């Protein structure tokens, strides 16, 4: 008798293999479970990382806050240092924007030719003909002699009769910072006894000269520090300093009568 397999062909178990009633759906589900598990793990890791990072950020923010508070407690010191710098800068600007009158006197004494005398000296900063004081003061209102001011000097005096006045004019041009030297008047003193209204000796030439200097420059910004020494050391200029400065040529002399002071 022949054996008959009553199990439908589609339900029969293949030889050597596992029964596959789901056509692979079970595998898909199994794989899906694994992937969902991976998804969950990724979420968990991300959650954990997020937690850690938020904690770290909070710590850093707290730390920054703490440091800021500490710095804020010392802000007054910073403000004071800034005040010092501000004052130093302003004072340095004022110092540097000044015209050096003493230097001018020294140069005048050194450059005037022998035999020439000065009977009056009048120097101003920002006088007529120069940059207007109002304009200059707009640039740096702190200083009474701000950058752009124009120093001018008017000189009256006596020069030797022959070639004295040209020599005076050319020598005055040697003074540092001089822009123009303008002769206003030159008159030979005809009186033999000297004196007269000009104070010059007979035969001498009385002159009136206007010297214009270069405009005061903007103060340099190279100054770094203000030194404030204690008790003043004897660094004051002495008469010898002036003599040394003016010793190269005849010193300038202003006197009522030129004869009295002429050397």
């Amino acid at each position, binding site marked *: 008798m022949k054996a008959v397999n009553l199990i439908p062909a589609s339900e029969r178990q293949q030889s050597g293999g596992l029964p596959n009633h*789901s*056509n692979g759906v079970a595998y*898909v*589900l199994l794989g*899906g479970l694994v992937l*969902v598990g991976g*998804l969950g793990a990724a979420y968990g890791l*991300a959650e954990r*990382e*997020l937690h850690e*990072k*938020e904690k770290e*950020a909070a710590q*850093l923010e707290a730390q*920054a*806050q703490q440091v*800021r*508070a*500490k*710095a804020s407690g*010392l802000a*007054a010191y*910073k*403000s*004071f*240092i800034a*005040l*010092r710098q*501000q004052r*130093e800068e*302003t*004072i340095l600007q*004022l110092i540097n924007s*000044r015209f*050096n*009158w*003493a230097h001018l006197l020294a140069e005048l*004494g050194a450059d005037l030719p022998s035999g020439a005398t000065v009977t*009056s000296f*009048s120097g*101003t900063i920002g006088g007529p003909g120069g940059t207007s004081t109002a304009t200059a003061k707009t640039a740096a209102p*702190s200083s*009474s*002699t701000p950058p752009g001011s124009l120093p001018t000097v008017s000189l009256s005096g006596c020069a030797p009769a022959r070639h004295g006045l040209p020599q005076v004019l050319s020598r005055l041009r040697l003074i540092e910072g001089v822009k123009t030297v303008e002769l206003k008047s030159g008159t030979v003193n005809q009186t033999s006894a000297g004196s007269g209204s000009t104070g010059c000796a007979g035969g001498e030439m009385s002159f009136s000269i206007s010297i214009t200097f270069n405009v005061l420059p903007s103060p340099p910004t190279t100054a*770094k*520090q*203000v030194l*404030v020494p204690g008790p003043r050391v004897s660094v*004051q*200029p*002495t*008469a010898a*300093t002036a*003599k040394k*400065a003016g010793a190269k040529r005849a010193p*300038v002399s*202003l*006197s*009522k*009568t030129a004869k009295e002071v002429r050397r």
Partner: protein
Amino acid sequence: MSGRDRLVVAIVVLVIVLVVGWTQVVSPERSKVSTAEHKIESARSALTSAQSELQQAQQAKAAYRTAYAAIVALGKAVPASQEIPSLLYEVEAASEHHHVDLLSVSATSATSTAPTTGAAASAQSFQQLPFTFTFEGTYADLYNFLKHVQEFAAFTPPGLAVVHGRLLTIDSLNLAPAGGSAASSGKTKGHTLSGTITATAYVLPAGETLTEGATPTAPRPLPGTSSSNAAGVPATIKGLP
């Protein structure tokens, strides 16, 4: 439904579950992590900035005593008030030192100038205190006197300014032969010159004090800050002169 259909449905469902799971659950979380990372960067940056600020403040604190001494001494050049007696004293001392006779002094009222913009006027403008004084002396003595006056506050080429006294700007200088007054001082009249100097002294802006309330040990606390700073240094110490 055949087996193949069930397989396809299962795969589709799985893909949908995965996509939804990633987009709705994991991805937002990753996004939050990324935001937190940015937050950390920002916090780090803030911390670095705060540390730098603190370092500067600590340096400022370390330099405070020097700065205080400098500010006080700068008050010699530009005081908080007119301080005319000390100005006269300095000018008189300089004139005596150089054998120059101080004949007259006349001061005009202080003028205040409005602050402007720019580096040259970064600070509030000082008040100007113009005055005129007349002297008698020889040319060399007047030269020395002028030099001395300008050296009350002077600039040296290496970049240093030295303050010995009141900062003065000489606006004009007139020299002429002296009149009869020199004879009374015993000088040789013929060599004596009369000098008229118009100068300007400076005063701190109105309302500004020399140290702005600071003491030798600590500055005045800024408005809105506690009276005691974080370093534990009291802002003001009572009993100090």
